[in-house]
């Protein structure tokens, strides 16, 4: 089997600052009301602005975007933790906000920041979680043992989790989310703050779980993670879906594929026109007075012609950066900003 997800025209406007754990690091400020003197400033934050997409049963789906793009809000709505202002979210056959309990049975959630029950030991966190989902005593003991083993936590099983390191808490959060064997697993920024080794372990675990026919939804702002794990991706920024498709499709959509970021002492229309005529160049943009972004079907081979063109026209080339076809360049192409901005 397998469970698909559909969201239709989701909008979320926060009237108060969202809780810290929900959407961390909103990068854009509250909307200002027109007349500063009269009405007191009303807090209003449009986190999602008409988002629609579909996640197929059994796929690994990635939501990619910078901090504050609306990723966590989307996950929050799909996991019953954030109430949408309008729009619908459907998991399997259940509307998440109409049939919450049925939807909750289908999902497991790994939050952005571990929210483990600090009053319990690692093992109890798993067994009580199993009990909440109606597992019998023997079943939850067995599953807890398996998961502790799988996540290399067996030797700390009886310790209170407040003594755990960040990585251990993260592993336990994932184990907990898998405890009731959910059909859909949500992971909000799963590899933030993990060391490279644990990150690879995490990827392996996600792939393994997906092989069982489970649907995986993850958010990330790491391009390589999205590229390595996801069957399909949606790129989200400022609460809107900018683009979606398989990683290969998305990369193919970048004009030319390569991006050369150039910096000159100054930039004129004349220079841009000259660069546009170079072989293989598909698009030339100037984000500010000294920079030029050149999209082309080749990378290093273009440097020689660029240097000659610039010298002939009396411009000084100060810096060159070549980006190979990647989701990073795609994001840059759509938003004019780097993912890390």
């Amino acid at each position: 089997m397998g469970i698909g997800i559909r969201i239709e025209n989701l909008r979320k406007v926060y009237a108060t600052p969202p809780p810290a754990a929900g959407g961390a690091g909103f990068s854009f400020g509250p909307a200002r009301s027109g007349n500063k003197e009269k009405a007191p400033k009303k807090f209003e934050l449009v986190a999602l602005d008409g988002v629609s997409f579909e996640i197929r049963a059994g796929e690994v789906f990635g939501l990619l975007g910078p901090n504050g793009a609306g990723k966590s809000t989307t996950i929050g709505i799909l996991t019953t933790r954030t109430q949408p202002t309008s729009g619908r979210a459907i998991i399997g056959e259940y509307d998440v906000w109409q049939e919450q309990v049925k939807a909750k049975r289908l999902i497991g959630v790994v939050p952005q920041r571990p929210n483990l029950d600090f009053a319990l030991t690692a093992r109890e966190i798993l067994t009580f979680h199993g009990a909440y989902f109606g597992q019998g005593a023997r079943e939850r003991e067995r599953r807890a043992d398996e998961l502790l083993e799988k996540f290399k936590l067996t030797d700390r099983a009886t310790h209170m989790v407040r003594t755990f390191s960040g990585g251990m808490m993260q592993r336990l959060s994932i184990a907990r989310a898998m405890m009731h064997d959910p059909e859909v697993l949500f992971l909000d920024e799963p590899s933030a703050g993990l060391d490279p080794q644990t990150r690879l372990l995490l990827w392996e675990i996600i792939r393994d779980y997906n092989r069982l026919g489970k649907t995986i939804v993850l958010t990330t702002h790491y391009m390589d993670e999205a590229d390595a794990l996801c069957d399909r991706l949606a790129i989200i920024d400022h609460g809107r879906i900018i683009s979606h498709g398989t990683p290969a499709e998305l990369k193919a959509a970048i004009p030319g594929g390569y991006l050369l970021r150039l910096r000159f002492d100054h930039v004129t229309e004349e220079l841009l026109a000259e660069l546009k005529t170079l072989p293989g160049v598909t698009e030339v943009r100037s984000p500010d007075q000294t920079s030029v972004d050149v999209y082309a079907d080749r990378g290093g081979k273009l440097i020689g012609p660029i240097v000659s063109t610039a010298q002939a026209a009396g411009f000084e080339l100060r810096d060159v950066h070549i980006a190979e076809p990647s989701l990073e360049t795609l994001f840059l192409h759509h938003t004019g900003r780097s993912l890390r901005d």
Partner: protein
Amino acid sequence: MNWKTFYALLARDGHVLRRNLLPTLLQNLLQPLLFTFVFGKVMTTSGLMPAGYKSMLLPGVMAISMVMAGVQAVAMPLITEFQFTREIEDRLLAPIEIGWLAVEKIVAGMIQAMVAGLVVIPAAWLIMGSGVKLDFSKPFEFLLVALLVALFSSAGGLALGCSVGQTQIGLMFSLVLAPMMMFGCAYYPWSALEAFPILHIAVLVNPLVYASEGLRGALVPQVPHMNTLMVIGALALIDLGLLFLGLRKFHQKAVS
């Protein structure tokens, strides 16, 4: 409603309580029992207070213990769990409507309040020695009043726990709980306030007044106390109000 999940949530709270049993007992019972010793034993034995004061004091101490136990049992963990660590999230994701999680908290708080109240009776009796005249001839009235008191304390704990931040816990004690105890007619009967007409009426907003007076009516009817029907009516109204407020606050806090 999903009983298995509800029971598991309750079992989790019971498990945590067992783990912290001693500190919880000290937190809830030490202060009232010290008060019992000083006023019910030292002051009466030394003759500064009449011996009859003992019987008047015991229901008041029981009311305070129940209220403190219920409020703290619900409010304190909620304040922590709703902080940025969001420890409660796992339970909010359990397959049950989130309102039932609040109800579970209330039930757990009521059980603790009832236990605290029932422990206080023999403990205070032992501390104060002879001279306490308790009347157990109205068990149903006693049980009803005690249940209403337990409900108001844990529903109040829910409302407080969802309104107060971690940094305001001290303020919650000094601004809410301390005045409530002092003007809760626990250490004196309501009729003693007749000499202060404004206070006599003003304290009627304090639910602890009905708790103390109600338990007095049920346990020591020989002492002057408020009419039992009035007590039960007022407690029932307060219970409903706090329940409504607490559940609403919980919902606001739980869903963003």
